[in-house]
């Protein structure tokens, strides 16, 4: 695990001290809101519908138990006893008071955390595969790369005022769990034909108003060239990215307006110069960082307790079915803790639940916790013999919902219940769908289905890459929900296709059920997932199910 050095510690604390003075000056009236706003945003502090909101970075989604406990403490001491985990591996506190925020930031700095780069037109919190360092399908741990990028990008003077925000994701596996194709830069760690490590670099992906799947700008970038190459991309973007129109300022627009070939040519040209300016210290740094992410010392013990529980306990069996993933060490498992209890707010955890998770990580999980962009929590390294005990403890804490990857494991942004930009609510829609799925009782039979909900066009809820995507809009002051189908955020990334006119809030759950029932009728067998069926049969039958009246009219 990365540990702050003296420089990091001093930097983060100095930043808090600076912000403390800025808050004092704002409260005393010597800073106007116009002056203060960019300063607070640089420290992750937003003003939302009902209150301030503090967005805290969880770099590459990795936490230790002491950090999770500190988040619990912050939630209780300065907020309303809970936190909201987001689709960018951040945690948001929805109710802090302005004067308390410097204290909260100090409390975070004490455990090597901060809210830097969670807002503004800079390189944002770098995200990574939440199974990093644990998955059996991984080529290499993406977190050292993510940490190197964090150190390089933090307060980088050249990139403090980019045309727009800039999001980078890193995956170390051919299975893309980090939605890399929907990022400004997506990095996939690969090896070339002779086995040397490097990256496939994608550029210009993104969701939001103009969703795009990223294009490959370099199919193999040697590991040592990472920083000069990324720097070259950012330099080109900084120079030619549009600043005249906020909606055309993201790099995806730059790439699509200039074309990937021309953009690549500019980057390569810049790169030839840039590479000479890097002497190699960054590679030594990467090696030092890499050493800190060394795998834990695995426990060697029999796994009989796991097999016995599996044979004996059907509740445990169903938990194992959905919430466990194969670990690189066959005696271990990756345990996902669902923050999607049916009817609860997706991604929310109470302080008490955070403490339970911290305790389990400490006792059974080599002190590691991950936060996924799917708004769940993960214990990446649990020896199989301990999984029954972990499951029992989770059940007691109301955290054993066995629905990971199923219809009720919904991504939802905060929507108009909290967010200033939202045009409709997301959370109640997610709650209603999940509650209905529990009533139906067949989500296991339905299988792999990703429903993603955004409360506005900015798409924090990733609706474009949901198998079923739901976008909440404002139609003359009334909430209205558009449905897209066939989206995919993985290595087979695709943008969902809009099905047709939107639905009133009350009609969304029945519409989703019609989609699900249509799928169940059409699937070739139980193993054909929703997305596969959609890809095979296309939009038509689903559209007919969504709009039966129109379909009947067309048939006459």
């Amino acid at each position: 695990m990365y540990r702050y050095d003296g420089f990091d510690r001093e930097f983060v604390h100095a930043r808090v001290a600076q912000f403390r003075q800025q808050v004092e000056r704002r409260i005393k009236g010597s800073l106007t809101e116009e002056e203060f706003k960019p300063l607070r945003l640089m420290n992750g502090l937003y003003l939302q519908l009902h209150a301030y909101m503090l967005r805290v970075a969880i770099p590459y989604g990795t936490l230790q138990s002491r950090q999770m406990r500190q988040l619990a403490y912050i939630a209780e001491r300065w907020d309303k006893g809970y936190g909201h985990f987001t689709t960018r591996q951040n945690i948001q506190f929805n109710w802090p008071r302005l004067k308390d925020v410097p204290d909260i930031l100090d409390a975070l700095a004490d455990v090597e955390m901060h809210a830097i780069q969670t807002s503004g037109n800079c390189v944002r919190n770098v995200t990574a595969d939440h199974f990093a360092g644990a998955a059996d399908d991984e080529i290499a741990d993406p977190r050292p790369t993510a940490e190197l990028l964090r150190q390089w990008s933090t307060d980088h003077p050249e990139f403090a005022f980019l045309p727009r925000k800039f999001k980078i994701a890193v995956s170390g596996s051919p299975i893309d769990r980090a939605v890399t194709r929907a990022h400004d830069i997506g990095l996939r760690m690969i090896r070339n034909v002779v086995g040397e490590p490097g990256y496939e670099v994608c550029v210009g992906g993104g969701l939001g108003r103009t969703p795009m799947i990223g294009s490959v700008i370099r199919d193999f970038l040697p590991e040592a060239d990472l920083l000069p190459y990324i720097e070259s991309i950012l330099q080109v973007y900084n120079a030619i990215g549009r600043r005249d129109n906020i909606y055309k300022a993201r790099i995806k627009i730059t790439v699509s307006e200039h074309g990937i070939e021309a953009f690549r040519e500019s980057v390569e040209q810049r790169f030839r110069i840039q590479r000479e300016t890097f002497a190699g210290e960054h590679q030594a740094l990467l090696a030092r960082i890499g050493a800190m992410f060394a795998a834990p010392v695995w426990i060697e013990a029999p796994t009989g307790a796991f097999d016995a529980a599996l044979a004996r306990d059907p509740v445990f069996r169903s938990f194992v079915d959905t919430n466990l993933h194969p670990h690189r060490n066959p005696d271990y498992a990756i345990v996902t803790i669902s923050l999607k209890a049916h009817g609860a707010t997706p991604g929310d955890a109470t302080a008490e639940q955070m403490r339970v998770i911290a305790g389990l990580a400490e006792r059974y999980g080599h002190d590691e916790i991950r936060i996924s962009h799917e708004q769940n929590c993960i214990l990446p390294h649990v020896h199989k013999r301990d999984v029954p005990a972990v499951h029992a403890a989770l059940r007691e804490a109301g955290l054993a919902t066995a629905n990971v990857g199923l219809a009720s494991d919904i991504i939802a942004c905060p929507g108009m219940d909290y967010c200033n930009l939202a045009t409709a609510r997301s959370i109640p829609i997610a709650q209603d769908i999940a509650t209905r799925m529990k009533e139906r009782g067949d989500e296991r039979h339905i299988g792999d289905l990703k429903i993603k909900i955004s409360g506005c066009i900015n798409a924090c809820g990733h609706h474009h890459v949901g198998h079923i995507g739901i976008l909440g809009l404002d139609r003359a002051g009334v909430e209205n929900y558009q449905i897209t189908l066939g989206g995919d955020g993985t290595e087979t990334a695709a943008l969902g296709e809009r099905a047709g006119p939107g639905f009133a809030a009350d009609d969304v759950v029945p519409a989703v059920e019609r989609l699900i029932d249509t799928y169940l009728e059409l699937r070739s067998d139980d193993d054909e997932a929703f997305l596969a069926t959609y890809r095979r049969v296309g939009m038509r039958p689903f559209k007919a199910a969504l709009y039966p009246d129109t379909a009947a009219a067309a048939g006459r």
Partner: protein
Amino acid sequence: MARAFRPSILTANDLLDGDVVYLARDGAWTRRSAEARLFEDEDEANRSLAAAESQEDAVVGPYLAAAVPGGQLGPEPVHIREALRATGPTNYCHGKQTGR
């Protein structure tokens, strides 16, 4: 073309805790939309908005939000967003809901 004026309440967020506030009939800021003053006259509304914009040490981001007279409950905001601001989030009994 400028949009026709609709009767409005004047709302903002409190500087210190971010809570939603409304300009009350007595000219003070209140946390309750029921106590908000409903402006029927456009000029008067704009004058009050300009005055609020200079109260940087008390409120953030004042603006006019369309509302209708709501009888005993006071003015009722027209837009769903304003209705949510007036009551608090749907998913928890937090914010303004707890104080009532």
